[in-house]
């Protein structure tokens, strides 16, 4: 006699349990984990003090995603960008991170937007690991033991100072001042910089700490005049303070040569300052790990992106992409490379394997983003070049070779 199928509560529960068990244990984990697209999540400061840089970065990042997807994505799968505003508040970035990590489509990479966030997320990454990069060059993060899932897509601030100090040494500089913002970002390389300068025989005659915005410029210029250094390194600023200090020093007829670090090396800011207040930034120099976008001849990656933007926006595209956006794109290029390496090695794409692939990046041709082949050491890339600003053509031009530390 044919058994009649009768779905009662007990049989329903039994069948459901069996089905769940089959899915849980019967299907190989690598197949279950296979995503349809690569979710790459990030926080952008679309409001708050760095809203201008954040908005620019988001737009260029989305264009980079569109370009990458139009050429097949990563290892045959498209990128699904997920992003949120953080207002440059680390706690909000952390909330965005938790939101991304609790979604059904978990990200394979998370892009943070501040050093503060990179610190706050560290314990969380131990619980929910994901490859994590971002805009921070904090020296503390370049330690795979304490920050196993985080990487820096360039040199640490310590390395940037090393490059600048080597440059100063090569020019015969003896007296140096550090002017830096009263932020974690500003204070990061100072201690290291002092000891490195000492080892190179350079005398640090002044350590001047300023507000990150709205600093009392004339007070700081007075200190600078008293110390009268040959060189001054400005660090911990993005859009403001550094141009005002240089302007103040020039008004005070000081001949001190000013140098900056990556976030204070943006052409858009230098151009705007020159347009508004005159050519006093002439000769301002600093370290950046990436080529400027107008050096596309030496950077095929920039050339491709240029062509894409030109075809998308036509004459509306001004022909320049900010260094801030280049930094974000390069971070994603590294994540992309780590994913490709993991897929090619036939491994599951998870945080652990991605970190292994990341650490295996040696002598990679970055397509011109950086001048020398890229190798990841201690989750950072210790190379950069010194550029100097020319007010006549509004360009930062290289004045050193690519330096590794």
């Amino acid at each position: 006699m044919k058994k009649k199928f009768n779905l009662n509560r007990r049989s329903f529960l039994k069948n459901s349990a069996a089905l769940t068990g089959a899915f849980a244990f019967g299907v190989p984990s690598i197949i279950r984990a296979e995503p349809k697209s690569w979710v790459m999540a990030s926080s952008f400061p679309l409001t708050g003090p760095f809203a201008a840089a954040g908005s620019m970065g988001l737009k260029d990042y989305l264009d980079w995603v569109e370009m990458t997807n139009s050429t097949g994505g990563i290892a045959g799968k498209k990128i699904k960008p997920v992003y949120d505003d953080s207002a440059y508040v680390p706690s909000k970035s952390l909330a965005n991170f938790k939101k991304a990590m609790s979604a059904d489509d978990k990200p394979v990479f998370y892009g943070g937007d501040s050093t503060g966030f990179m610190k706050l997320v560290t314990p969380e990454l131990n619980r929910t690991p994901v490859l994590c990069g971002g805009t921070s060059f904090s020296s503390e993060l370049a330690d795979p033991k304490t920050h196993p899932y985080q990487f820096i897509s360039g040199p640490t601030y310590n390395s940037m100072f090393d490059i600048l100090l080597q440059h100063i040494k090569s020019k015969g500089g003896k007296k140096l001042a550090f002017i830096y913002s009263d932020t974690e970002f500003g204070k990061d390389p100072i201690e290291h910089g002092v000891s490195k300068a000492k080892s190179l025989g350079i005398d640090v005659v002044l350590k001047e700490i300023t507000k990150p915005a709205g600093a009392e410029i004339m007070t700081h210029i007075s200190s600078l005049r008293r110390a009268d250094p040959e060189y001054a390194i400005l660090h911990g600023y993005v859009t403001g303070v550094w141009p005002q200090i240089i302007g103040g020093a020039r008004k005070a007829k000081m001949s001190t040569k000013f140098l900056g670090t990556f976030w204070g090396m943006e052409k858009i800011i230098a151009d705007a300052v020159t347009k508004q207040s005159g050519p006093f930034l002439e000769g301002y120099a600093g370290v950046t790990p990436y080529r400027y976008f107008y050096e596309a001849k030496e950077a095929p990656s920039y050339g491709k992106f240029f062509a894409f933007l030109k075809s998308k926006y036509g004459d509306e595209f001004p022909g320049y992409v900010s260094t801030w956006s280049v930094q974000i794109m390069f971070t994603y290029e590294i994540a992309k490379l780590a994913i490709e390496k993991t897929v090619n090695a036939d491994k599951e794409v998870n945080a652990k394997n991605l970190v292994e692939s990341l650490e295996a990046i040696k002598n990679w041709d970055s397509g011109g983003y950086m001048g020398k082949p890229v190798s990841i050491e201690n989750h950072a890339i210790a190379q950069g070049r010194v550029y100097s600003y020319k007010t006549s053509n509004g360009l930062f031009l290289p004045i050193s070779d690519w330096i590794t530390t």
Partner: protein
Amino acid sequence: MIIGNYKSNYNSDESFFGDWPNKFAFILLCLLLVLIPFISSGYVIFLFTQVAVFIIAIVGLNILTGYTGLVSLGHGALVGVGAYATAILQSQFNLDFYINIPLSIFITSLVGVFFGLPSLRIRGLYLTISTLAASFIIIFILRNWNSLTGGDSGLILDPIEIFGIKIISENNKYFFIVPLAILSILFAQNLFRTRIGRAFIAIRDADLSAEIIGVNIVKFKLMAFGLGAAYAGLAGSLWAYNFLAILPSQFELHLSILFLAALVVGGSAQTLGPVFGAFFVVIIPELLKWAMGFLTPLNPTIMEYTAPANSFVYGILIIVFMIFEPMGIASIWSRFWNYVGRWPFSP
């Protein structure tokens, strides 16, 4: 026929929850709180846990500002003291959470009393400015005492462990922190049925008159600062265990202003004011973000405009509440349940 919420005997006057609609609402809320972790994503649970921490902090501010009338702009920094006390006690002395939390509360309370000393000589706007100065002093210490506080890099904590279970998942943190928030509210509710609570209210309403009728102003003002700071200490301690990493920038002036705004929007000098206020400042921005998210498919870069719009709408909402409901959201809540209690004879 029910025509009002009248109390006809001492028992009903002393009753903790008031009439049946309030009891019903409380039970409903508790049920909802138990259900949330089972029906929500990790992110939503994280938000509710954050709301719970905020509630504890704002209840403390409510005692100080709402009930005692001493407006403080240093409450965020006191939460920082609690958080750092917890992190330092754990990292330097390796203390367990059950010693750590009470000690952090005690330390923060002492700091609160110390910074409350000016209240014995000054009041009103001048006192507010002195609490603002206290906030700057505390943050300066947190940022610059590198050997103890880690400076701008902050500190990282180990999670709480109870009977071998690490309180690290969102669910575990939720079930650890939310009950403490409920207990904090109940304690505050009960406080204002005692002599101490009534002394606070008397000081707020007319401190000279209170002194004339025998209220020891010095003692009770400092006690209000101590109690408010104790709540901040508990909130800070739980904040540290919730995030497991703390930075001085988290506790700067903006946090104190946020707490004050939450108290005013939620309803000052009302038990449920901090609850609604905390929900308002934590959940509303997220809801706005979520609502604006529906526009993203229209244009991927639209967030460039919707993100500032969120802040704008959020600001407008606060202004609207100030104009149309100056007694706060708690007042709407209380009117609603009074209406339910009197139905069908509600006006």
